[in-house]
């Protein structure tokens, strides 16, 4: 381990003294303080801090990702091309320890840079919190951003039986086309029925009401409020693009609890707080949405003039949020996830450097980074690639089918921050659980980083380190 540590120290010294890391760190630390004054978001204090958190952490992730793959690749390939490896390989240092030491050094460097950047982001977020602002804006910042909230979605019913019944009904009545009766066609049609059923479950026609029971809420003793978060669509479009509605939360017989009238713009996120005492001891919370305006005179739900059907967006257009931790804890966990993301990138850089020159290795790393950024999009696209190609219908169908397994393998192989990205959660004041950190570390470090490291070690241990000199 002492040898590995020596290599790691040398790696850090190289990155620091060659001033690559230093320059990037200066750029980051210079840009981060400017951010809050440039990125104003929606103009509110909450929007400004959210935008700052999103942009600054994204910037740190992008810059450190690029730095990591290129420095790791350059460090290893340069040792070979500039022949320092001759003296290293003639010392009692197993090659796996050399690679592992390089990786460890890169992780150390990332740890230092991330700590510096993280500290800068945190301090500036806190500084923004201290800026003078209206009480409501301060409260929004405190309860919706600088916090760690758990989100609970209403449990979606199982629509399988309904969908099967509908499909069988159509089949019996002979209203299915030939294609819809094939396995592939039936699958598509049932998927469509599923979507429709889910949409209907979230849809409230004019003057009607719908109740959802949220389960598993565990607001702590310090949690005074839970937040209802929602985003609506409406058809036909309502006047002024706004919907008048009434919310009934929890047990209405509770003193001080009554209907909550709201007027909300469609296609925008809205929040409102309710007392956490409305959550039942069994952790359930009843939420009823009434698609009518309230009669303000008698405080009763009246027949109204809404003519629009309202639907909450899929999949999280209606959600209950409650505080389960502090912003600080959340911030630390988000940095840990970013740190975990950089680990496979360091291994990727070493993998490229273990058998390629720096320019070619950089090209490979860049391609993987692009693939990584597009992973989610590609994964969704692959869903639509037919499992039984029909070249007569679409000549490209066959190629798509042929390359699907390869692309799937590539997508699984590239480091994926998208799946574990803490950035949106952090800016949205949502809790990043230790479980998600463990899952991210497991996937990105124990699987992907380990895979790249093993490949690097196998290649580097087998290759000749000297070149033709005759």
């Amino acid at each position, binding site marked *: 381990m*002492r*040898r590995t*540590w*020596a290599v790691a*120290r*040398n790696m850090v*010294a*190289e990155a620091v*003294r*060659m001033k690559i890391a230093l320059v990037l760190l200066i750029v980051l630390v210079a840009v981060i303080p400017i951010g809050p004054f440039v990125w104003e978001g929606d103009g509110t204090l909450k929007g400004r801090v959210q935008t700052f958190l999103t942009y600054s952490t994204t910037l740190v992730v992008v810059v450190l990702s690029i730095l990591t793959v290129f420095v790791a690749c350059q460090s290893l390939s340069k040792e070979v091309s*500039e*022949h*320092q*490896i*001759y*003296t*290293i*390989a*003639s*010392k*009692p*240092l*197993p090659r796996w320890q050399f690679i592992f030491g390089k990786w460890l050094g890169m992780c150390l460097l990332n740890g230092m840079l991330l700590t510096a950047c993280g500290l800068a982001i945190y301090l500036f977020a806190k500084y923004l919190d201290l800026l003078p602002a209206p009480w409501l804006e301060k409260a929004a910042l405190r309860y919706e951003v600088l916090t760690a909230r758990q989100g609970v979605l209403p449990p979606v019913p199982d629509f399988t039986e309904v969908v099967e019944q509908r499909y069988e009904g159509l089949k019996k009545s002979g209203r299915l086309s030939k294609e819809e009766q094939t396995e592939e066609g039936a699958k598509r049609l049932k998927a469509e029925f599923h979507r429709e059923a889910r949409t209907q479950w979230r849809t409230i026609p004019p003057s009607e009401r719908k109740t959802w029971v949220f389960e598993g809420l565990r607001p702590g003793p310090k949690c005074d409020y839970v937040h209802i978060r929602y985003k609506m669509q409406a058809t036909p479009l309502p006047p002024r693009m706004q919907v008048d509605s009434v919310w009934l939360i929890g047990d209405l017989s509770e003193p001080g609890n009554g209907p909550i009238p709201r007027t909300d713009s469609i296609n925008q996120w809205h929040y409102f707080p309710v007392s956490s005492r409305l959550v039942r001891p069994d952790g359930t919370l009843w939420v009823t949405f009434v698609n009518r305006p309230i009669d303000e005179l008698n405080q009763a739900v009246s027949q109204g003039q809404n003519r629009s059907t309202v639907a909450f967006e899929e999949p999280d257009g209606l959600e209950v949020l409650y505080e389960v931790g502090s912003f600080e804890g959340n911030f630390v966990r988000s940095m840990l996830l970013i740190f975990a993301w950089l680990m496979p990138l360091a291994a990727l850089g070493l993998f490229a450097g273990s058998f390629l020159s720096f320019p070619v290795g950089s090209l490979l790393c860049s391609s993987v980074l692009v693939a990584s950024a597009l992973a989610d999009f590609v994964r969704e696209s692959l869903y639509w690639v037919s499992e039984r190609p029909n070249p007569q219908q679409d000549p490209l169908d066959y190629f798509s089918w042929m390359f699907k397994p390869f692309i799937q393998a590539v997508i699984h192989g590239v480091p994926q921050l998208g799946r574990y990205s803490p950035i949106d959660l952090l800016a949205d004041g949502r809790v990043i659980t230790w479980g998600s950190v463990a899952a991210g570390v497991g996937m990105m470090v124990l699987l992907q980083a380990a895979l790249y490291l093993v490949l690097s070690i196998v290649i580097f241990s087998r290759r*000749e*380190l*000297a070149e*033709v*000199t*005759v």
Partner: protein
Amino acid sequence: MPVVETIALTKVFKDFWRRDRVLAVSDLDLRIEPGEVFGLLGPNGSGKTTTIKIILGLLYPTRGRALVFGRLPTDVAVKNRIGYLPEESYLYRFLNARETLDYYGRLFQYPRRERQRRIDMLLDMVGLAGVARRRVGEYSKGMARRIGLAQALINDPDLLILDEPTTGLDPLGTRQIKNLITEELRRRGKTVLLCSHLLGDVEDVCDRVCILYGGRRRALGDIHELLSRNELTQITTEKLSGETIDQIRQVIRRLEGKDVLSVSAPSDKLETFFLRIVREAQRARLDTSGVSEGTGVAAFLRGESDAARGQAVIDGLVTAGARGAELAEASELPESPPPTAETSVIEELVETRPTPASPEDAGLASEPQGPPEADRRVIEALIKPTDPEDDRRA
């Protein structure tokens, strides 16, 4: 068991399409025994460096095999006993000399104190103690070479592989390497594999040599046997008069029926002259940003333990004390003021050279006073890498 053994060692470099491109080494059989200083000679591209790289496990043989201490070169344990100075000192430009040696010391897992001890001694030995905090990237080629040598010696190796060790070195460094090999390493039974085309260097230090050409072995044997010219006899005396020389000519003609081919007065070697000038400058403490005078071979390379070094220091102080007492007794002499014991010890410490006495330290007269050919070799070493004359002799 030989320290290095190659059996039908062959290396063929292939091109991108896996076609044989260059036959670098072909069926090379070598045995280097413990304690031997072995020279691997050959013109550029003859396969010397390739052979060394196979011995170090940097390249893999196409056929045949190489063994080091009876094991394959890829065996990491073997490398605990090897020191390697490549043909150029490939160092980390961002580290300074001390950090460089510290890094290599860490790879041998020496404890901090031992590492620092060795680093201090090596820096003193290669004359870079004064510039140890400067980045290696700022060093001249010769200075980098010295650090390269120091890293090769940090583990006090049983097998020292030197690839063109004197390239870029000034005569001071060249002489130091030669002394190290001929005096300390040989005495301690270390094995040295020296690869060079500076034939003078090889001739000065090697016991056996192998000459390669086109990757094949062309000659192998004891250097003195290979170089001896039994058809000539050389007599060296103090300066003779012309009359005596004439008489000697006549005696030889009468007794042997042969002519004297040449009579000349040997001149001082340029190497000796150069070393004397540099030493004088060092004694005058003239400023330099380059190397300073080395303190002789590092103690750990002489096989001395800490206890032995401590005893040597005590012995030195006792001797100095005794000398101080003698001086005190001679204080009646009017020319010199009576020295105290302390001052005489200090004088002694200042004047006494630390240790054995490299030939320069012991006095320039100990330099080999060779025939004119030897002088030329030194000049060649200073001016150009090879000389056809030497090639012919080889």
